[in-house]
Structures are given as structure tokens and as C-alpha cells.
């Protein structure tokens, strides 16, 4: 009678193998842990140094002007008066204009790329989006200044002005270089970012859900609105958050098309200024106090970006929470 082995050979070698793996993986784990931990500490340290140095460098300006840097209405480098409220307003206004157009068009475009457009065109559109995302901002600025500004000033702005009869927010005179133009150039710049990131978020919504919803008789629009968009919400919010941060901080392109006039823009056709473009243009020849004031602007900009991120996170957490409840 042939003897049946008590344990299969595989199981016999099981014990030492586990041992080996364990020993090996423990070593690997500690190295892996050390590297990652070190990297994250280093990253935190770099961020801390960066933020602290900006805070420290801006101290002379806060001493000089106090909180009037935030609520003051006159920014004049020459006379050392640092009231950044009009500049903050300009920054928010350009970003708002950009997002006003970019969010609906960007998300719509992403939905279309994933679910509506046929295969070949999908690839073409996708690579087009990635191409646009890689164009340096100075190119957008030049394009805005040389191509779009004349068109705005001759066609778009007079047409808009005729809608409201030259009343708010489209008072004369059309200038080309303006708040509206800066917002529109920003829109074109952040659009590919929103499209690319939302597209990826929409694409990973499980196909089962999509098909399941269709099979219970929902129309395609209903499926997109009720199933796909909520499923991709986290990614889309992330895309919009990143786009907002980019719009707030965009420097070169805005500097070229906004007119750099640190006043409250009474009209969308008027010139304005933004935090980042003011920093870029004035730091090269600034006295230590003026450098500190520009540091304060950087701090304000960072705070604004932080608020946007925090708000984005809250939105995402809210949706995840609700999803969990459901």
C-alpha cells in the first residue's frame, strides 16, 4: 500500500519560505519605511521653511502698514503705501471669470470625451487637451495680447456694452487689455486642466453602474447627471480646486493682459491687477520694505489658496460622507 505523504511537498517547504519572506520583508519594510518617512519629513520641513521665510520676510511690511495691507485701497510702490484690497479684488475677479466659463465647459467636455464622443475622436480630443495643458503660460499671454485683445476691443466688448447699454458691468471704454480679457485668458489656461482631471475621474466610475442605470431605463442624460457625476465628484472637485489655485496664482500671462493698474475695476472692461503679477513686476527693483510688502502679498495669496484647498477638501469629505450614509 503506497504511503500517502502526510503533507504535500509544497506545504513542507511552506514553513521556511514564509520565514524567508518574513525576514526579507521586515528588512525591506524598515528601509522602505525609513525612506518614505524621511521624504515626508523633508517635504514638511521644506514647506515649513518656505512658509516661515515668507512670513518673516513680510514682517517689516506688517509693521509699516499693519492690517491695512489687507483692507487698504491704495497700492503705490513709489510712495510706500501698501493697500492690497484692489489687487485682491482683481485676483478674485479674474479667477471668478475664468471659473465661470471653465467649470461648466470643462466638465461638459470631460463627460463628452468619456461617454459621448466616438473612439478615434476621443483619442484626438484627449491628446489635444494634454497638449494645451503643456503650453507655457507666456504663450497664452502673448496670444491674449496680440490676438485676442484686438478682437475683444473691436468686437466683443462693444457687443457686450450694447447689451447693457453701456451700463454695469460693461461700461465703456473698450480697451482690449482688461479684467475681462485676463479672466478669459485664464479660462483658456485652466480649461485643459479641468478637462483632463475630470475626464480621468469620470472614466474610473465603474462601467457596471453606468450600464446598470441604463438597463433600469434611465436616459443617458439622467445616468450622466445622477450616476456618473456623483461618482466622479471627488475627482472633479479636486480638478476645480487645482484650477482655482492655478488661476489665483497665474503670473506671466495675466501680467501681459490685465493692464497692471492696482485700482478697483468699476467695469469688466477696465484694467486691474493681481497679486502674483504685482509681485512679479515689482520685486526686481524694490527696496527692502517694498520686498516685504510683496512678501505680504505672497502670504495673502497663499492664504487664499489654502482657503480654496480647505473648501475643496470639505466638499470632497462631505460627498464621501453622504455616500457612506447612502
Amino acid at each position, binding site marked *: 500500500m503506497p504511503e500517502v505523504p502526510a503533507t504535500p511537498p509544497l506545504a513542507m517547504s511552506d514553513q521556511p519560505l514564509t520565514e524567508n519572506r518574513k525576514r526579507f520583508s521586515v528588512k525591506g519594510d524598515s528601509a522602505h519605511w525609513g525612506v518614505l518617512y524621511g521624504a515626508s519629513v523633508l517635504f514638511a520641513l521644506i514647506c515649513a521653511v518656505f512658509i516661515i521665510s515668507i512670513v518673516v520676510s513680510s514682517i517689516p511690511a506688517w509693521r509699516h502698514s499693519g492690517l491695512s495691507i489687507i483692507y487698504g485701497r491704495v497700492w*503705490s510702490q513709489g510712495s510706500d503705501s501698501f493697500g492690497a484690497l484692489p489687487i485682491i479684488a482683481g485676483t478674485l475677479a479674474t479667477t471668478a471669470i475664468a471659473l465661470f466659463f471653465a467649470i461648466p465647459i470643462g466638465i461638459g467636455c470631460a463627460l463628452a470625451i468619456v461617454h459621448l464622443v466616438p473612439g478615434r475622436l476621443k483619442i484626438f480630443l484627449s491628446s489635444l487637451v494634454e497638449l494645451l495643458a503643456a503650453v507655457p503660460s507666456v504663450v497664452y499671454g502673448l496670444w491674449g495680447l496680440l490676438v485676442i485683445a484686438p478682437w475683444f476691443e473691436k468686437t466683443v466688448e462693444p457687443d457686450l456694452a450694447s447689451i447693457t447699454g453701456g451700463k454695469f458691468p460693461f461700461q465703456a471704454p473698450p480697451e482690449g487689455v482688461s479684467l475681462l480679457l485676463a479672466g478669459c485668458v485664464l479660462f483658456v489656461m485652466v480649461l485643459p486642466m479641468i478637462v483632463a482631471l475630470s475626464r480621468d475621474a469620470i472614466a474610473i466610475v465603474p462601467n457596471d453602474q453606468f450600464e446598470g442605470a441604463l438597463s433600469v431605463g434611465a436616459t443617458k442624460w439622467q445616468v450622466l447627471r445622477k450616476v456618473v457625476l456623483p461618482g466622479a465628484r471627488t475627482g472633479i472637485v479636486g480638478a476645480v480646486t487645482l484650477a482655482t489655485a492655478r488661476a489665483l496664482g497665474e503670473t506671466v500671462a495675466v501680467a501681459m493682459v490685465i*493692464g497692471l493698474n492696482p485700482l478697483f475695476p468699476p467695469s469688466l472692461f477696465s484694467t486691474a491687477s493681481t497679486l502674483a503679477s504685482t509681485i512679479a513686476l515689482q520685486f526686481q*527693483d524694490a527696496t527692502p520694505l517694498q520686498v516685504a510688502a510683496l512678501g505680504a502679498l505672497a502670504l495673502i495669496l497663499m492664504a487664499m489658496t489654502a482657503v480654496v484647498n480647505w473648501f475643496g477638501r470639505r466638499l470632497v469629505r462631505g460627498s464621501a460622507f453622504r455616500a457612506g450614509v447612502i
Partner: protein
Amino acid sequence: MRIPRTVRLALTMTAVVVTAVSLVAVPALAGTRSVKAVGDPYLAADTRLNKSATIGGAGSTFAAPLQNAAQALFQARTSNATINGYQGVGSGTGESDILKKIVDWGGTDVPMSQTDINSKQPYGADYTLSQFLQVPIGLGGVAIPYNVPGLTAKTLTLTAAVLANIYLGNIKYWDNAAIKALNPNVKLPHHQIVVVARADSSGTTYIFTDFLRRAAKTVWPTLPSKSPLTLPTGGIAGSGNPGVAADIENTPNSIGYVEYSYVLLNPSLLKGVASIVNAAGVALLPTKAGIAAAAAAKPDVTSTNFSIVWQAGKTTYPIAGYTWAVIWKQNQTLDAEGTLLVKYLDWLSHSGAVDGTTAGQDVAALQGYVPLPANIQALARATLLQVTGQKGQVLLTTNGS
């Protein structure tokens, strides 16, 4: 070494065009015309270099067309010399850059003062004005171009007081009574004026505000300054002379101020250049003759007494100024580089040599500047002779005449 200033891409493009044009135009002109020697004749032999060296400068955009055109020519005639492309970053930044020693010379339209040094020197440094020398390298004027569509007049006449009121926002429309009174036969549109000025610290702004202050003190009581002006609502601030020129060109109903050569470089700006009423009450367009008359009216300029705006004389254009190169009195780099620097600036600040070759001020004449008067060329030479090397030796060698 330098941060690439992408904001000034437009300027770089201008520079490339200017350089290309001058590469063709200057030698061609030098070949067909015998250059008249002015004052201290420049000797071609002086630009020879024993060792190869590289220098670079940055600053005033007022001087940029001159620098860009002259540098190419100097390099072509002097082997061993490499001059990095001049960075038109504005006069204020030119001063900051020479104080930080990131350039070999800083270009400024307003000679640097001790106050400038105190406010801009690197942290911990304690520089004094006597450590620097300021060499006049160009003479030009500030033109007032405007862009008013449909205006049939050849030129609008403006005064300092009207300009000051426009820049203060007191005169808001083109058909303002004050402008009408100066231009009785011109049909002016009821369009809002778009004021264009400089966004960066600018010598051109200094010359312009110096003019407003001297000619219309009651309307413009503030002292002249390089700092960006506070503009009326809707005003546009452009980066550098090229930025202002582009903004005027692209914006209807605008008015601004740029160095004269930028008007010549942008033919579309030539459509509307204001005639400015001078101290004798005569309205004049900017011309080389008018700018030369301003220089002639005040021949004895120095780096502390340099203003030539609002000079007397019927033919004098009232908004003119010199542009300067700021350098260290004791050269801060290798002797070979210091030697190249003084030889280049000496060549740049002089008119054609007795041997008929072209020197810097001949290039200047082609670019819309006025060649420096003979006494100013001599001032430049005398100043450059004070530059010393590492052992205290004089770097500029002139082999006499």
C-alpha cells in the same frame, strides 16, 4: 547666472529684430558715408583685446535699442569680445543689478544716487556713491504717442499742464476744453482717455515726471521719480518701453510716453505723436534737432546735475534726457573683463573714428538717438579713465592721436 525674464519676451523679440536690422544697416551705411569725427575722435585700435572676455549689462529700456544694435557691431569688429545680450529690465532694476554685481554695467536714465544705493544694496553691504562711476552713453527724447481713431489732424498739441491733468485723471475725455483750446481746428471725439504708463521702475518715467514737475509745478507738485505712477481708473501699466508702445498701439483712445526710438521702431505709433509746447511757447514734435537743442542749452551736465528737460530755446524739444551706464570704479571681475567693459563703453560713447569706422554714437544716430555732444563724449572718456583693475592700474588704454 541671470533669471530668465520671460515677461520680457516681447522685448527680446524687438531686440532680435533691431539687432538683425542694424547688422545689415550699420555696416552698409558705414561703407557709403564717411563718418564725421566729433570732438574726441575715437581710435579703432583701442578696441583690441589681448584676452577673451565676456561681459553683460541690464537696465534702462530707453537705451535698449542702442545697446542691442551697438553690441552686435562691437563684437563683429573686436575678436575675443563677447557681450551678452542687453537685458532691458528698466532703469531701477539696472541699478539693483549692478549693486548685486550680477551685471558688469547697469543702464539707467537717471544717474544712481546715494539714496538709491541705500535702499537697494544687498543686505549687509555698505556701498557709497564714490565706489561707482556713471558714464553717459546716449541722448534721447521722450515722445508722447497717442492712438485716437478717426483723428484727421497731423498732430495734437499738448502742454505739460494738460498732460499732467490727463495723468492725474482730471482730464477724462479727448474733447476736454483744455485740449480743444490747444487744438482749435481739430475735431476731437468724446471718448474716454486711456492713460498708459510704466509698470516697472523706469528712467523714462523719471524724465517724463521731471518734465511735468518743471513745466507745470502747480498741477504736478510731486517730485520726479522712477516709481510706477498711480494711474486713473482704466489706465494701463506696461512693462518697459516696448510694453507701453504695444499698449498704445493696441488700445484706442490711449496716450502714453516712450523713448523716441520706440516711436521710430513702431511705425504704427508714428500716426499720432503729440507736439509738446516748450519753454519758449512753441509746440514741437520730437526730432533729433530738438533733442540736440535741449542738450546744447545745458552743456555742462554731470551725474549729479543731469536734467535737460524744459530747457530754453525756440527749437528745443522739452522732454529730453541722457542715459547712463553705472559701473564699479574698481572693477569687480577679472581684469580682462574690466578691460573689455571700459573699451566697449568708451567705443559706445564716442562718435566715428578718424579712420572712418563706425563707433557707438553713429549707431545711436541710426536708432533715433542724438549723438552725444563732444563735451559729453569727453566726459565719458574722462570718467572711464578712472576705472581701475585688481592692482589699481587704469584699465582704459588710449594710444593717443
